[in-house]
């Protein structure tokens, strides 16, 4: 009986030792030791990925809608209006039929004429320009200086000042419009140009032209500093 008990105890002890080992070798122990670290790393990484996903979603939601179509439409519309106004205001080169009028100081020997009456004055040019406008001129320049509503034609010693620049005689005025009307307004008897030529002996010559090119306004003061829209 003792022998039986001995054998039984021996067998069971051996089984226990075997069971306790349970394949736990050195690698398993090492793996077990690092398992916690692994799990922590994975957990951290999951969090990093989650944060990045959130950030990507946020960036996508924040992406500005550039609204290209509306922007382009607004640009095109505004540019169209600007071009139209520029053409109207004399800020565009234009071409068309019209006349050329050359005016220069008098060469008359008439001693009854005052020396001041022999010189082309600023007001002479101003009145000629006004006459051309009243004859329907659509674009006018004097020696390449486009005449617009903010243009000045004033005396500056021996020359005139137009659009901020000195303009010497002879003055060549070019006007685009109805050739007949423009020609008549500077040649018919009783007109200002007729008197300049026939009363004061000034050199006044007009010719018609079928294709005049009038440059745009190049002023220095075309930006409004004082006036603002009241609408």
């Amino acid at each position, binding site marked *: 009986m003792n022998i039986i008990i001995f054998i039984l105890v021996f067998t069971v002890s051996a089984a*226990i030792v075997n069971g306790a080992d349970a394949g736990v070798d050195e690698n*398993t122990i090492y793996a077990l030791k690092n398992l916690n670290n692994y799990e922590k790393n994975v957990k951290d990484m999951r969090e990093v990925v989650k944060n990045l996903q959130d950030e990507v979603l946020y960036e996508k939601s924040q992406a500005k809608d550039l609204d290209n179509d509306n922007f382009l439409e607004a640009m095109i519309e505004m540019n169209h209006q600007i071009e139209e106004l520029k053409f109207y205001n004399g800020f565009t080169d234009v071409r068309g039929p019209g006349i050329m009028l050359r005016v220069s100081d008098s060469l008359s020997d008439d001693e009854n004429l005052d020396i001041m009456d022999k010189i082309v004055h*600023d007001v002479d040019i101003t*009145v000629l320009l006004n006459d051309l406008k009243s004859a329907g001129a659509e674009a006018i320049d004097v020696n390449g200086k486009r005449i617009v*509503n903010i243009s000045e034609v004033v005396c500056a010693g021996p020359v005139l000042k137009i659009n901020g620049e000195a303009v010497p005689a002879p003055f060549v005025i070019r006007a685009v419009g109805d050739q007949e009307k423009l020609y008549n307004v500077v040649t018919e008897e009783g007109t200002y140009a007729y008197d300049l030529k026939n009363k004061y002996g000034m050199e006044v010559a007009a010719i018609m032209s079928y294709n005049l090119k009038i440059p745009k306004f190049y002023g220095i003061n075309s930006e409004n500093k*004082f006036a603002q829209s009241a609408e």
Partner: protein
Amino acid sequence: MSKLWQKVMLFAISLVLGVVCMTQIRTTNNVLGNEDPQNIASQLDNELAELTLQKNELREELDALKQTAKENEEIYDAKEAELERLKEELANQQILSGYYEVKGPGTIITIDSEPNSYVSLASSHQYILALISYLNNAGVEAISINGQRYTNYTEIVPVLDHINVNGVALVLPLEIKAIGNSRTIDASLNFVGGIVSQLSQIGYTIETENSSEIFINKYDGEKEFKYAVPITIEEE
């Protein structure tokens, strides 16, 4: 007795051994779990590798999105700036055209005839033209004569004893409004032999009044172009 003792001993030993044995097995299971720890480590390894890959991809995507957002912001800003520039240019051209009411500081010039003197406005129209020219010389930005806006196509035509401006008959007194720098306007008109003294010499009175805010009407006519055409860039 000894047989009974033996049986008791056997029972006790078996009981203790059973308890020890089961405890051992449970402990092993608790420590190692159901799965092989190496398998778990390997799975975690794989997951970590996958997450790292995912992290890198997301990081790249985020960088690209941020770069795009930055570029879009720049494009957007440039477009806004361009629109702003166009708006300013448009406003400037609108004011110049005379088709919009404008306001601003400036000078109001009132021209009338001297008492007991007769002057013909029609025969003095060149003085009014000269006055406008000198106002422009002072850099004014908008002019009106008795409410008629002076535009690019405004003519001053003498008719009988009065003048027509924009086709509208005007008589004395004339009120000329000009928006600009009052001091410059004053200097441009009032020099010796200047337009004010010329007008005074022929029987007019000229009064000037500076104002911090002048309203100038818009031109309500239309201009039709029949002859002038714009030169396009290709033609140049």
